[in-house]
């Protein structure tokens, strides 16, 4: 896969998967869950990546 467009497409999909899973996990864990802080970190990073890949889109 060398075409920059293909790479961009695949990357968007992978980030979407990461973001999707982390949101499911966040919805499932209670407010006192000890993993919550870690999940929040992943979520923030994933959102930042999405913002980079979709400069035209509002933050999700």
């Amino acid at each position: 896969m060398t075409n920059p467009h293909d790479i961009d497409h695949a990357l968007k999909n992978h980030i979407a998967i990461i973001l999707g899973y982390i949101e499911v996990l966040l919805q499932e864990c209670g407010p006192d869950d000890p993993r919550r802080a870690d999940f929040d970190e992943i979520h923030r990073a994933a959102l930042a990546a999405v913002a980079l890949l979709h400069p035209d889109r509002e933050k999700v």
Partner: protein
Amino acid sequence: MGARPVLLVIDDEPGMLALVERIVRPTGFELVLHTSARDALAGLAASPADVALIDLQMPELGGLDVLKAIREIQPQCGVILMTAHAAVDSAINAVKLGALDYLSKPLDIDRLRQLLSQAREDAERRAALLAAENQTAHRLELCGMIGRSAVMQELFGLVRRIAPHARTALVTGETGAGKEGIARAIHELGPRRQRKFVTINCSAIVETLFESELFGHMRGAFTGATDHKAGLFEAADGGTLFLDEIGELPGAVQAKLLRVIENGEVQRVGSMQPKKVDVRIVAATNRQLKTEADAGRFRSDLYYRLNVIELAVPPLRERLQDIPYLTAAFVEEFSVKFHKQIDGVSPAAERTLMEGRWSGNVRELRNVLERACMLAEGRSLTEREIQSSMPSTTAAPPRSTDSLDRRPTPPRSDDLDAIERDHIIRVLAEERGNKRAAAERLGLSRRTLYRRLERHQLVPSRDTLGSVGSPET
């Protein structure tokens, strides 16, 4: 809805399928996951889905093409598209093509759940409607006989009213119209339903054997009578004897039959001993028995005895609005018989059926649909499959407006009403059901056309409007 609703998900990225499964699993959907759109479409016919969630950009087949294919093969399946590159024009396209919604990736999880629960409610509502429709259908049937038209409903009502009481009945109608079905219904709905229904086809019996068949014989009564034998009257004792094609009964037997009906006694051939029998007699004929009687070819006294109750089954061409219902029932019957998944007929195929002449009536319609189901390749019978299953005498003349305008088809009867009705049907068919255009060509206002359609029973109720044309046009 009995089973769980089915969600079909197609995405070339397996991680995406796993994510959707993770999100959707708790909502009670059964999931079918595919990375290949072609495989997914191939499997759809065998295991239908209620909703499909489809990636827009896939290497082998784009999401819009998959959407189109699903709208074609399974229109009741709701389709949601998703894409990593949201673009306004593809979103508009998707909605135009009938998509429920268009989601961008990363997925809005709550929105997805909401869409699915909505789709699920829709599917349940459809299932409930279908069940209600089936119930209605059942209520409007008579012992499995279908007839939504006013004339048939009237006939069914008459059968229900006379069945508990009638001792004799005469069923008249053209070949294949359903006389035997009506005769059976009289038996089934009467007090003798637990007893025998015995049939004799009067045109199939050698003249010399009639008496022995009907009344029985004693040993030695004639050459070949090697034993005592009970006739059909004795066999049907307590039940119903169906004398099909009674017009073919030889004169001598007619006289004896009349005596049996009047005295309730039979005498076996070769016996002097009369025997009491209690038999309800239903006779059927496709001849004009009155004319036969007037011409002296059928005993008038027997005719008047039989026609105390006459049940006239109208020919199919006088109840075209039954055709869609009969068609649906026969297609279902034959799709089971041939192990094919056929849901119905295309709109063009239905028009072709509505325009047929059907001189062989329901039997002919049934045969045509049997052949068409045998030929069928898709999930709905096409116009071509219907046409090639129809004898040329049944098919309507070619629908090219040009030739039809100059060379009107001969009317089926001299009755002015029938001519008008035929003409309206033809013009409507040529205008592909467009009532405004048809009204214009007929020189009528749309309202007047509607009134005529009602009068000719071409629009029995809203749900069958589609068979002649959609109500909006």
